[in-house]
């Protein structure tokens, strides 16, 4: 599947660009734009996280923290200190990257479940700080009045404009991720996933690559967080708790670990399902859990690759019978 996607990669990007441009023609309701924008924001985080999980084989349950750091850097710098908008976003991205380096350097020496705990603990600490450093963050009441982004005279102050803004970020970040994966770095990452020891013995500095990809995935999350802050104009700690970290890793798995387009599907399907299931009212959590379990039990390769494989199996069976 991966190979197949690679051949048609450029076609896929073309289609994605067309769909992004065309969607506003068909969608009118404000609600659907909000859902689409949230999907876009999640996709940014998931693409970055998938580089880490799917290609470097490292699990992080702390990405809500990086997403949150992006939001809070943007929010605090622009609201409290009157920073210009885009530089604030850039500072947020670099600062988040630095934090990720500091935490990633010792963490990524940990293995398996120890790494899960370290990233989880880090996420919880950052979430507590968001609530308690009231003089900067506004505490649990949140930070209000974050200005919308603007380029020249164009202010991204409604859902449609933000749709174009967010999805152009998605488009270019996915393109960047694709190019990265097809480069020397990408091959090294794939080797690490195959076997860390083997990669190491072939001269790939695995520790170095793992930290770098961790920092990169944190920066993806941070940019998404900044966009979120400027889009919604209000942030509070509850958006960045442990559940968000779990949610994005779930999207990576459901979409398919190590599949770039799977990230888009995972974020899309789960965000959409989670919204759609609100009609189930109090059964919402159960329904979401059941959906998740069904996918993990029956399609562990992820929805896209999983269904493709099922299809392939049926096709080969038909051929055999013939």
């Amino acid at each position, binding site marked *: 599947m991966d190979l197949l996607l690679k051949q048609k990669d450029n076609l896929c990007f073309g289609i994605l660009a067309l769909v992004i441009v065309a969607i506003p023609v068909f969608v009118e309701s404000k609600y659907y734009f909000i859902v689409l924008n949230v999907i876009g924001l999640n996709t940014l985080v998931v693409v970055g996280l998938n580089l880490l*999980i799917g290609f470097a084989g490292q*699990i992080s349950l702390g990405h809500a923290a990086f997403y949150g750091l992006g939001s809070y850097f943007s929010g605090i710098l622009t609201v409290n200190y009157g920073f210009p908008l885009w530089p604030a976003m850039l500072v947020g991205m670099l600062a988040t990257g630095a934090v990720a380096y500091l935490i990633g350097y*010792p*963490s990524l*020496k*940990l*293995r*398996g*479940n*120890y790494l*899960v*705990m*370290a990233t*989880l*603990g*880090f996420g*919880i*600490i950052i979430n*507590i*700080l968001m*609530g*308690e450093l009231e003089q900067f963050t506004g505490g649990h009441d949140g930070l209000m009045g974050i200005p919308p982004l603007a380029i020249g005279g164009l202010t991204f102050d409604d859902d449609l404009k933000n749709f174009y803004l967010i999805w152009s970020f998605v488009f270019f970040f996915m393109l960047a991720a694709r190019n990265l994966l097809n480069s020397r770095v990408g091959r090294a990452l794939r080797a690490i996933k195959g*076997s860390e*020891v*083997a990669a190491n013995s072939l001269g790939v500095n695995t520790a170095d690559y793992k930290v770098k990809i961790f920092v990169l995935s944190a920066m993806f999350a941070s940019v998404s967080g900044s966009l979120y802050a400027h889009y919604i104009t209000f942030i509070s700690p509850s958006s960045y708790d*442990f559940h968000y970290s*779990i949610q994005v*890793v*779930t999207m990576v*798995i459901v979409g398919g*670990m190590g599949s770039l387009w799977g990230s888009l599907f995972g974020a899309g399907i789960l965000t959409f399902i989670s919204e759609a299931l609100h009609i189930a009212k*109090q*059964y*919402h*959590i*159960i*329904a*979401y*859990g*059941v959906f*998740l*379990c069904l996918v*993990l*039990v*029956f*399609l*562990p*390769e992820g929805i896209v690759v999983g269904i493709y494989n099922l299809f392939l199996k049926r096709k080969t069976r038909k051929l055999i019978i013939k």
Partner: protein
Amino acid sequence: MEFSQQIAQYIITGLTIGAIYAIVAMGFNIIHNATGIVNFAQCEFISLGGMFMYSLAVLFKVNLIIAFFISMAGVALIGALIEMGPIRHARSKEIIILIFLTIGLSEILRGTAQVVWGTDNVGVPAFSGETPIHLPGGAAIVPQHIWIFAITVMVMLMLRYFFKKTLMGKAMRATAVNRRAAALAGISVNRMVLFSFAFSGALGAVAGMIIAPISSTSYDTGIMLGLKGFAAAILGGYGNFAGAILGGIILGLLESLGAGLISSQYKDAIAFFVLLLVLFLKPRGIMGYGESERV
């Protein structure tokens, strides 16, 4: 005097909560040893234990002791069902998939608990009254604290006996060391995994039931307790039973002293910060030992 009294009080609270973490950590360890995964449904076992106890003891007025054992058996059964259904039949045995499967399962359990019991906090009566007992140092202790210590110690002794002396316990330990070798020696690995889920269900339920009278319980109390129990298990060295006790107590004391002496808002942050420091200095926990990596 005043200050040392306070410290004594913090230490008692810390040890109590630490005992709870230790029991939860044991539950995590037992499943880890059998399967290698982190079972996040452990969090829900704790909540369910508390809520079962509440239903039986408060709503149906069942005798506390009987309610205790029924709840324990009930949650153990849920643990077993989880293993027999989704975990065993999952098409992929990759660790990360199984871990997230337990997260999906815990969502189902939590959602169900929310539908059945609602979202309110409910109280469970203390096992033997609430008159505090004054200790010679000037600190006071509520009888429930003594219950928590006593039950924790008993659970630990029983687990020790089970794993060291009984055939089934030895079989479970053999499975933990090497699944293949255990299977070759005629141990039904599947059954051992099944028992480990039932066991950690029972342990989670016990933790949820004994803490319920002190801090009220609700459908999602288990999340934070469960995560702390996981932290305790990691701190001590994942899979190590003595480490679970040590990790639980250290975490409990850190939290209680941190809350009392530094700031109650930051108590969780302090506990997790120390955990990170320990992990960075000793990547396999305090009592964990290194594993050589196989190629």
